[in-house]
């Protein structure tokens, strides 16, 4: 078996899945049934380990074009050994994180998953998604392509709906957002896939509760085919999507104090953990700060980062 070809979700499997639209209307929820949860997690960890092993043992890897041969821009971005910065389609804006990622940023043609650390961190996950979308819209070409944001009513009641005046401070222009308010997860998934397949959007984003493997694979395939990123916000306690290119675990972190008055809130900070990343060892975590002025992430100063990390276990226990 040629090394490197298996990393892609097998296209033949995916295309078989896409031949059955009915499967999409009723996403499989078997993963929530007994026994499905730990098995999925096990497979996920196994897969990441195997990926890591393959990357380490394959000497031709660093010279080989790419671990994921599907898209051209990834091929150029994935020569790990080169230190020359390659312009990626979608970055955090923080050189440390972008350099760590195999695509010098996030891969534009793929499924990315954002998960809150605890159920109470749902707004943090949404906030990170908003910030990432703002960064994506800024570099998407051609410019002024809209983005699709699909939410179920459950999520709207839980964390609120996108609010234009506030999104402006994230750098998102409200007029470019197409908001879909769906009644069910299946409608969100359908809307996301339609958005991807239209090929006219800069990005699609959505929140779903349960996500079956078939539905996730369809999204991943559509995202790869149309080179449009898909950002999924999923609940904290659901198992992760195995076909996602990257999975981020997000929690709120104490914000930076205001320069003039420490009692005032200033920059928003997130505690970010890269739980899964195709082609990279997972588990790395950062504390990042979103800058309202430059619309980019930057690493929080080390002291603040340590304080946040120290505080984290206590918060989880509570």
């Amino acid at each position, binding site marked *: 078996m040629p090394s490197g070809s298996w990393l892609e979700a097998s296209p033949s499997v995916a295309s078989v899945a896409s031949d059955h639209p009915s499967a999409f209307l009723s996403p499989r929820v078997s993963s929530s049934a007994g026994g499905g949860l730990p098995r999925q997690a096990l497979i996920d960890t196994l897969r990441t380990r195997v990926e890591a092993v393959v990357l380490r043992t394959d000497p031709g890897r660093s010279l080989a074009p790419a671990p994921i041969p599907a898209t051209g821009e990834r091929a150029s971005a994935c020569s790990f050994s080169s230190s020359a910065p390659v312009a990626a389609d979608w970055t955090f804006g923080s050189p440390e994180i972008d350099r760590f990622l195999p695509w010098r940023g996030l891969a534009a043609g793929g499924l990315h998953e954002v998960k809150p650390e605890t159920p109470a961190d749902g707004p943090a996950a949404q906030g990170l998604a908003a910030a990432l979308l703002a960064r994506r819209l800024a570099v998407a070409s051609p410019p002024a392509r809209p983005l699709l944001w699909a939410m179920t009513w459950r999520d709207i009641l839980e964390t609120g709906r*996108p609010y234009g005046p506030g999104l402006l401070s994230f750098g998102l222009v409200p007029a470019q*957002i197409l908001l879909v308010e769906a009644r069910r997860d299946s409608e969100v998934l359908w809307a996301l896939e339609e958005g991807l397949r239209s090929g006219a*959007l800069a990005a699609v984003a959505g929140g779903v509760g349960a996500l079956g493997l078939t539905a996730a694979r369809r999204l991943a395939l559509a995202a790869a085919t149309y080179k449009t990123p898909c950002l999924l916000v999923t609940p904290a306690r659901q198992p992760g999507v195995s076909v996602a290119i990257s999975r981020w675990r997000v929690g709120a972190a104490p914000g930076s104090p205001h320069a003039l008055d420490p009692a005032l809130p200033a920059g928003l900070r997130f505690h970010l953990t890269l739980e899964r990343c195709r082609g990279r060892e997972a588990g790395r975590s950062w504390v990042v700060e979103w800058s309202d002025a430059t619309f980019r992430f930057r690493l929080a100063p080390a002291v603040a980062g340590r304080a946040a990390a120290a505080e984290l276990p206590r918060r989880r226990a509570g």
Partner: protein
Amino acid sequence: MPADRPLALVQSLQGRLTLTAVNRAARREGLGAGLALADARAAVPALATLPAEPAADLAGLRRLALWMSRYGLRVTLERPAAPQARKSKIGQHRAAVGAPDGVGLEITGVAHLFGGEPALLADLVRRLAGLGLTVRPGLADTPGAAYAIARATAGRHLADRIAPSGETALRLAPLPAAALRLAPETVTLLHRLGLKTIGDLARLPRASLERRFNSREVTAAVLTRLDQALGRTGEPAQPLAPARRYSVRQSFAEPLVSSEGITAALDDLTRRLAASLAAARAGARRLSLTLYRSDGSLVRLAAGLSRPSHEARHFQRLLADKLATVDLGFGVDLMLLAAPASEPLEAMQTSLAGLTPAGVGEVALLIDRLASRLGAESVLRLAPQASHLPEIAEQLVPALEALTVSQSPGPPERLRSGQAPEPAAPALEPSSAMPGRGARPPFLLPHPEPVAVVAEIPDGPPASLEWRRRRCRIVRAEGPERIAPEWWQPLMALTCRGEPRAGAAPRRQPRTRDYYTIEDEAGRRYWVFREGLYGREEGEAPPAWYLHGLFA
């Protein structure tokens, strides 16, 4: 009820019960519409009666008329007497005679599609008989003549009921004058004058009619009806459904039962409709697809378009979604695709590579597809509105109605270059860079939620917050930002979820809000407000705290 028993429908007209319709057995007994129920009972004691339902009759007739639009596009409801004839000096009003009792259909230039006029009429009678309806057809050059033939011809033969082109006067001559859609009083008057048939009337010199009637109005009514029947003057018609400018149809020899066949036919229809729209430089804003099922029922599907389009692929994808859910029943024998609303379509500048700018068409198609499946109210755009109240400062508008997504300005320049931090992005929106305005959260709850807050009175920031049964200590706070109710707006009461005091006056005066951005020890950031000022607005209830938005 057995068909051979005399049956009549009765209705109370001006204080007395009157027959409005009778069945064949009753007509054989000599009864007819317009007779008082008491007289009818005296003549036929065994007469069974049912209350008349004019509204249901009219609805049924309308449905039948719509069904008839399969033969021709101009369908009218026929009324027996015109208003000016009822305004005669005799003045006896009979409301019942004004109600429509027939369907008119213009088949000019249509009959050959069905194999000629007799074949069309035979097809119509056969199909209606299949629906359990008896029909008295009439076919002539003018609506008036067709009306007269349909109602006054005795013969059942279809050949008797078709007046060939040019023979209208000949066919009408032996028919009674009542068939001319004249008010009953006028007909009585004509009878008294010995003018029993249409032929008698037509032979008379026109000038002498007025002298005989001694009434200009009656003369005018009679002459107008006569001229209309003979085609000497035109007759304005009010088509039931407005004639569609863009419509294509496809009929099938055998009823189509397979969805593949329907899809293929839809493919063809959309291509033809798109071609006719493109030829007229128009784009459809609404589409309506009508499926005529072989059992006489019909299904109407509609789809809206966010911007005018004449792309067959666009139409096809919009309608195919809806078509998938349609029950085809015993098969479909006719499909009609129309664009009831269309707009001139401006030519679009394409780029050198032949692509439309920024995928405008694709976005429109996406919006249409999302809206047609999820409902127009579920696909929204965020529109700013000039208001200080946060929940009003943004309005959600259906994307189908206002498509400016693709015409929006790009992201702010500083974001594009990723450097050069400037204090604020000007020229984005009037409210965004408003000086002195506090931060706004990226996510706003649909309704402010009541929270339990410990705060210093009168206007200290919260020190602790309990929301959704989670308590947290607040370590940083910014505020207050005071937002007063907009007195120039109509009274808008705050609607909150889980209103704590259900017994309080439901519609109280809006109060001033003090907004705070607060951050708890874990770094979660909330946007809360206190409604009401201590000392000034404590009238009905003490000030209360609400959570309105979330930062992260």
